[in-house]
């Protein structure tokens, strides 16, 4: 009888369950690295060996030149640039949207090219900072044309499979029915110079 009484309530002591779970939780918390697969996406030009060597003359006015030397100092359109890099963004917007008004600036957005030339000794940090601002200028102009915010625009171009996104993408880039793009993003990243490594 006394034995039965002892068996009446067979229960596993689960009070330490929380502790075990805590231990596992802390292990995963510590080992977790949340992957960040974000960054600045750029398309590279084709293999230089397979490109035909055609000398294309680009008029000076259609080029917006940014040069960075090995000490991370900048030249914008041939003049030393000491202000904040973010001002380059507005300069590019003005340059691209010139449409032939200023004879020193671009003919049309279609012909405008932003050229970024660095030195072999330029740090990646500076390069990223400048590239970020160039891309920001274009993304903001595109977003404005498509009537969305810049963040939304970047999300749109990351997911072009959706027809709605594709439509906005074509609108922003000014794609004509013939398939020509009126507002291309032309960023030329020149091969770095070797002066002063």
């Amino acid at each position: 009888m006394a034995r039965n009484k002892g068996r009446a309530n067979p229960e596993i002591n689960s009070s330490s369950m929380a502790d075990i779970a805590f231990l596992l939780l802390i292990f995963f918390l510590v080992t977790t690295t949340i992957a960040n697969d974000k960054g600045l996406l750029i398309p590279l030009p084709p293999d230089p060996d397979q490109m035909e060597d055609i000398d294309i003359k680009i008029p000076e006015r259609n080029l917006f030149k940014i040069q960075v030397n090995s000490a991370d100092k900048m030249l914008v359109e041939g003049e030393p640039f000491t202000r904040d890099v973010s001002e380059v963004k507005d300069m590019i917007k003005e340059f691209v949207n010139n449409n032939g008004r200023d004879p020193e600036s671009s003919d049309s957005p279609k012909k405008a090219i932003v050229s970024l030339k660095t030195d072999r000794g330029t740090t990646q940090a500076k390069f990223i900072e400048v590239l970020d601002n160039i891309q920001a200028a274009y993304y903001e102009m595109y977003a404005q044309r498509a009537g969305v915010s810049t963040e939304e625009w970047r999300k749109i171009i990351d997911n072009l499979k959706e027809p709605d996104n594709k439509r906005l993408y074509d609108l922003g880039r000014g794609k004509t029915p013939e398939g020509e793009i009126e507002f291309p993003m032309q960023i030329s990243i020149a091969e770095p110079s070797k002066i002063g490594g």
Partner: protein
Amino acid sequence: MSKFKKKANTKQDIPTSALPDIIFMLLFFFMVTTVLREVTINVKQRIPDATQLRKLERKSLVSYLYVGEPKKTDQWGTEPRIQANDVFIEPKDVTLWVAQEKDKLNEVERDQITIALKVDEEAKRGLISDIELQLRKANARKLLYSTILKLD
């Protein structure tokens, strides 16, 4: 007076029977989201920040290259190096590495391979442009410079 007495009699402890369930929930969350690192990164990685971040749509198409100053400077020197998988490679070996990475993908998707360059802030453009040239030769022309979001 009797009112106070009653209050003193009520149970004071918080029921903790749901605690393991809550902890398990958190545990499962972290177990599911965790990506175990496949390679040990042997180079310094101070990733620069930027504002115009793009997200990669398909992670299976992404291959990583790490560039920076080696962590073990007495063994490898202080010059920035390129790390692919677990070894240091020279810029000229990048073409071969891309070919190997492409072989891992489906035939139809090989052209869509994206190379994510995780470059230390202090690395010089010279080395990066050498990699870019090799990538162009290997026909891997989608390039992502890994950055983190700039916070104002």
